[in-house]
C-alpha cells in the first residue's frame, strides 16, 4: 500500500472539519479509514482534571510568550538627543565619561553623539547612579534611544 501520509492527513482534516462544522459539545469522536483511525474523547461535563489539550494547539496556534516586564521604579534613562554615532569617551582610547556605578549630577556630560561631523555633548538630566550603559561605544543611535540607565537619588 502507498504511503499513509495523505491518508492520516485526510482523516485528521476531516475529523477537525467535522468537529467544527457540527459544533456543539462533542463527547467522543472517531474517524477510521482502513488502517488509519483517529479517536478523541472530551471530559464529561463536570470533570475537573487537567486541561483538555486544545485542538487549537494541535492546529499549531500557540499563545505568544509573555513579555519580560520592564525593570521597576525609580529608574531614569539618559536618552540620545539626536540620531548619530554615540561615543562613551571624549576621544579614542580615553577613559569613558562615566562608567557603571558612577554617580552623575544633572547637566553632567556622559557621552557624545556625533551627527554630520558635529560633536554634540550628551548630558544627564537628573542625578543618580549609572546602573547600566545601554548603547555600544561608537555605535549608531536613534533619537531618543536609551544610552544609560540610572538609579535616581
Amino acid at each position: 500500500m502507498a504511503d499513509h501520509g495523505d491518508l492520516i492527513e485526510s482523516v485528521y482534516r476531516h475529523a477537525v472539519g467535522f468537529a467544527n462544522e457540527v459544533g456543539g459539545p462533542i463527547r467522543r469522536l472517531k474517524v477510521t479509514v482502513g488502517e488509519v483511525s483517529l479517536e478523541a474523547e472530551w471530559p464529561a461535563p463536570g470533570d475537573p482534571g487537567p486541561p483538555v489539550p486544545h485542538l487549537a494547539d494541535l492546529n499549531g496556534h500557540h499563545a505568544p510568550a509573555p513579555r519580560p516586564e520592564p525593570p521597576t521604579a525609580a529608574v531614569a534613562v539618559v536618552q540620545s538627543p539626536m540620531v548619530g554615532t554615540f561615543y562613551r569617551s571624549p576621544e579614542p582610547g580615553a577613559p569613558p565619561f562615566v562608567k557603571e556605578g558612577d554617580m552623575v549630577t544633572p547637566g553632567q556630560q556622559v557621552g557624545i553623539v556625533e551627527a554630520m561631523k558635529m560633536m554634540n555633548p550628551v548630558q544627564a538630566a537628573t542625578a543618580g547612579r549609572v546602573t547600566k550603559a545601554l548603547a555600544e561605544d561608537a555605535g549608531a543611535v536613534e533619537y531618543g534611544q536609551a544610552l544609560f540607565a540610572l538609579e535616581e537619588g
Partner: protein
Amino acid sequence: MFDSVLIANRGEIALRVARTCKEMGIRTIAVYSSADEGSPVVRLADEAVRIGPPQAKRSYLYAPAVLQAAHQTGAQAIHPGYGFLSEDADFAEMCRAEGLTFIGPPPEILAMLGDKAEALRVLSGAGIDVLPGTHRPIATAGEAADAAAGIGFPIIVKALAGGGGRGMAIARRPAELADAYAQARTSAQAVFGDERVYLERYVESARHVEVQVLAGTDGQVLHLGARDCSVQRRRQKLIEETPVPGLPERDANRLCEQVVAAARAIGYVGAGTFEFLLDDAGRFHCIEVNCRIQVEHPVTEMITGVDLVREQLNVAATGGPGITQQDIRLNGAAIECRINAEDPARGFLPSPGTIEALTLPAGPFTRVDEYVRPGMSIPPFYDPLLAKVSVWAPDRDQAIARMERALAECVVSGPGIRTTTGFLTSVLAHPLFRDGKHTTALIENLSVA
C-alpha cells in the same frame, strides 16, 4: 436597467456584485444565512433578508427561500454569483417561471453545459477540440474496456455530474481500468448521488488555460482574452493570471476566436468561461464551460478595464453587453492570489476562526476583493476564501514583484486562523512559476518536496 437586484450569494462575490450594482444605481438586496449576520454585504446592501440557517442546503442552496426573499423585496433580477445556485438549470427555470430575471445563461444552456459529457459532445460539434473520450455514460466495465482501447491510456473515469475534482479515478494501464471504473462509480454515487461515469484521455502534465466570453442574446459574442490558472491544488485554483505566460499572442487570439465561434454556435448567453488543458504538444483541449462569473474575473477586468459584473447586468437587462470587441484592449499583465482561511502546512485544512488583526494590501495597481472585517468570525460552513489580492503591471515580471510586495503587507490573524498568504509567496518564488513553465502539478510537487 433593473431597479433592483437580489444577490443570491455570500462572501466576497456578494460584496463584489453589490459594489457594481450600487455604482449603477440599482437597489441591492442581500440574502444571508444566520452564520453570515456580520458579513459587510448585509450592511452595505439596501435591504438584507435572513433566509435560513448556516447549512447552505437550507439557505444559499435553497431555491424557495431565495425566491421568496426576491418576491418579498420586489427584486426584479437575481445575481447568483458563483457556486451555490449559479449554474443550476432548475433554479434558472424557477426564476423564469416566477417572472424574475436570472442573471446568467438561460436554463437550456445551463442544462446542456452542466452535463459534462453532453457539453463535450456539443463543443466538439461546434469546432472546439476536446480530449478523446466517450462523452456519454458507460454502463459496464466491459464497455469501458472497449471504449478505452479507442481512447488510449492514461484514462480518467469521471462522474457525469462531476465537478471540483471529485468523483474521478485514473487508470494508467489497461489493468487498472476495472478498479478505476468501479471506484469512480462508487464515489460518484456517494458524492453526487448519480453513479454515471464517462471515460476521457487523462492529460498528465498540462497548463490550465481559459477564455472569458461575454455573449448577448443577439448573437454578439465578445472575448476578453485568456487566463492561466495552472496553480491549483486538488483542482482548486490558487493563483490566476493573464495573459497566459509563454503563449504567443497569435495563438491566444486564435484560441479566443475559436471560442467566440463556438459560443455563438451553441447560442451561449451571458458571461462564461471556456476551460482548456494545454498539453505538452501545444494543443488546447476543452474540458468544460463555466456558465457564471468566475472567482478569477478581476485579472481580466484589470487588463481590459471592463467591469464584467456590469456587463452581466447589461446582457440580462438589455440583451447585449454595453461594449463591442473593438472596445476591448488587452493591456499589461495581472495576477490574482486567493487568500484562503486554510493551513497549507496541514494539507490546506480549513481554519475558520475569528479575525483579530486584519491588514489587506493597498497602494499602486493593487486591488482587493474581500468580505472580511476585523473582529469578524469566519464561519466553517462555506468556502474558505477570505479575500482576493490582484495586481496589475505593464509586464508579468513586474506584476509578480508587485504581488510579492502586496502579499508581504497582508496580516490576517486571530485564534485558529491560518491563511495561504505565505504559501502563495513561496509559489511566486518558485523557478517554474517565474519562468511561466509550471503545470497543474506544481503544488503537488512542491508539497512532496
